[in-house]
């Protein structure tokens, strides 16, 4: 596992909660937000989530470092919604087919806030949860098949190795005269070749890892767990917190009259 996925050195409160409880809380918030495109429910949820950052051991700088692709995607989604949604109300900006009106701007902002409010819990969860502990909880508490869960966990470790191999194979191929220069077609072909090389290496690594795991007795029907995944009082609070944020978001939107169920609105 690379550094980004490790919670080593993070002693925040939420690192001690059971991963399954955190996962459930995150799912509740996400589900509610996925139901409605409106800026009120999204901003309420987002405000609560930002308040939770210290509990997960996150700072705004760290959040940006780990979650910037999601944050950018949310902003981009909001922007394109604002431009492309049907106009309603006063037109604020007009450039032919691209125009922003009060109505479409509101929709765009709602869309962006919603994207952020949905993405942030996932970043929060991964920042205070070790993947191994999550796997333990999924297999022991949620009773998912342990062969599948542990197989996935072991495979995730290979992803980090693959990132290193990609760089090495790129250099090794340049040393053979396969350059990343030339016209787009040549570059595309070079990338395809490099991907194929990576695929070959990935399959080799995976089959060697499979032998390693099998040689250590993996694959049997029963196994014991050295790290029992247990629940504590903290987990009740985590679940309540998730439920609370979801309820507050819905209540605020209903109160403000902006609640807007996705599958009931005009498409």
């Amino acid at each position: 596992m690379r550094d980004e996925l490790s919670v080593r050195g993070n002693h925040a409160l939420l690192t001690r909660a059971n991963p399954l409880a955190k996962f459930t809380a995150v799912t509740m918030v996400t589900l509610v937000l996925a139901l409605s495109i409106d800026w009120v429910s999204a901003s309420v949820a987002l405000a609560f989530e930002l308040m939770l950052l210290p509990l997960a051991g996150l700072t705004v700088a760290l959040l940006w470092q780990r979650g910037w692709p999601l944050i950018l995607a949310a902003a981009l989604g909001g922007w394109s919604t604002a431009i492309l949604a049907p106009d309603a109300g006063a037109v604020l900006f007009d450039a032919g087919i691209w125009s922003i009106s009060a109505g479409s701007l509101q929709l765009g902002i709602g869309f962006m806030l919603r994207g952020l409010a949905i993405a942030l819990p996932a970043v929060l969860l991964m920042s205070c949860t070790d993947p191994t502990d999550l796997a333990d909880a999924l297999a022991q508490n949620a009773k998912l098949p342990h062969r599948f869960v542990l197989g996935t966990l072991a495979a995730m470790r290979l992803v980090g190795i693959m990132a290193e191999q990609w760089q090495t194979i790129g250099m090794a191929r340049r040393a053979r005269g396969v350059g990343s220069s030339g016209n787009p077609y040549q570059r595309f072909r070079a990338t395809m070749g490099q991907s194929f090389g990576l695929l070959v290496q990935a399959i080799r690594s995976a089959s060697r890892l499979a032998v390693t795991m099998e040689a250590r007795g993996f694959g049997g029907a029963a196994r014991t767990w050295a790290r029992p995944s247990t629940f504590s009082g903290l987990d009740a609070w985590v679940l309540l917190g998730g439920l609370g944020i979801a309820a507050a978001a819905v209540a605020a939107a209903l109160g403000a009259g902006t609640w807007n169920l996705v599958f009931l609105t005009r498409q």
Partner: protein
Amino acid sequence: MTSSPGVRPAAVTARGWGWRHAGRPRPAVSGLDLDIRPGERVLLLGPSGAGKSTLLHALAGVLGDSTAGEAGDAEESDETGSLLIDGAVPRAQRGRAGLVQQDPETQVVLSRLGDDVAFGAENLSVPAGEIWPRVREALDDVGLGWLPLDHPTSALSGGQKQRLALAGILAMRPGLLLLDEPTANLDPAGVLEVRDAVGRCLDKTGATLVVVEHRVAVWKDLVDRIVVLQPGSATDSAVLIDGPPDQVLAEARDMLIGAGVWVPGYVPATRTRTAPASGQLLLSSDALAVSRERPRRAGLRQGFRTIAPRPVQSGVMARVRAGEALTITGQNGSGKSTLALTLAGLLRPVAGTVSATTELSGCADRRVGDGAGTDPYRWKAQQLIARIGTVFQEPEHQFVTGRVHDELMFGPRHLGYGEDRVDELLERLRLTELVDANPYTLSGGEKRRLSVATVLAAHPQVLVLDEPTFGQDANTWAELASFLSELLDAGTAVVSVTHDAEFSAVLGGTELRLHGRDAAGSGAVNAAVNAAGPDRELPEAAAS
């Protein structure tokens, strides 16, 4: 401390045992008759293709499903005779035997040290309360007990990873330890670390040991029996010689040398250099700092400026001259490979410069000579390969076609050269018979020879090699060393990253010793290489 019974050493019995992998015409092993008593320690030798790994995999109970898909053939694999551990089939006795393989990277299953060691015990349904005492004991036994249990496994060195794999096996309390070239990918210090850990654990548990290794000197004093296997055939027995180490080494010395085994006290004969004078300066570096990481962008607050990565090595002054060998040495993690790749124009210098002299960049007689500046990193790929050739540690990373001949023609074809050099290289590196083979299907030694040949086919004036002798048998080693000394005499510059003092002694030239990254002001400068002393390290043999 634990209530579990101690380790019960296992016995191995093979009667006319044979195995053919799915889709292969010939069996990997056939007609094997072998008895290993409980607690015996056996070193398994034999030429590449004698089925040593197949036997270990069968004993570990992992033969079959996992290897069946490899050949891409629907044919089933095929087993004959019987192979038993304590009178029962290995597959039915999960955890009775534990296997450590060659590649450290794929021996690690989980991301925290303690979890990884516990993995095997959990799979064997050891009661949870008993697992952690076992984990601590196993880590102490392999000498990793000083690390915290949540230490990230990705931060371990190669030797540490192999010891971790051993600990993971020990926590299962197996009666049979199977080691499949556990030290082939390690530097000399790592080799000894692993060997000593194995010795300590065997003394403590009394388990049976079967180890496959070509470095006889490393394991000779630890084992009490050597078994030499030969490639399977219908008539002959699979076991060629069997007996105490000294006796086998005395009786079969010549045969083992012929098979490329590193027999103790034997150094393969190599060509001596005839013209060890150094020629013109081709490539030099000044105040060079190197890193594999790319520069990254700072966040919004710092205005998105570029942050240079932290160099693993800095202040390096290197001089590469025509006809002269430059050997880069130093401990693990001192940035040897990174430095070599930077000199080779494959990585961008973090600070300082790498510059080619006009002698190298000009290349008046080369078709792609025009327009190349002094910085090799900025050269186009084709300009680069005609000047500096780089041979990577893992040959497979450099294969770009599906046929040996195409592989060799790839560089020359792109540069507009003829085939004459290719035929000569095929001949010289004994690849003529293999022209139609798929590069991925070659043996370890053949892959190494091919990777050297493909790079040389582009006529570079500088050849850079990263650990060229890792995992090579004595025959390939001698061929490679002789061939490089010939190239040097013909005026090519050879830069090699190596731990192999014997190898650098054959090439002569100068040594660039890198100090650890924590050493202050590690300004490494070329220094004269010492002749190999008596405590030189022996390279090891190819994977079978």
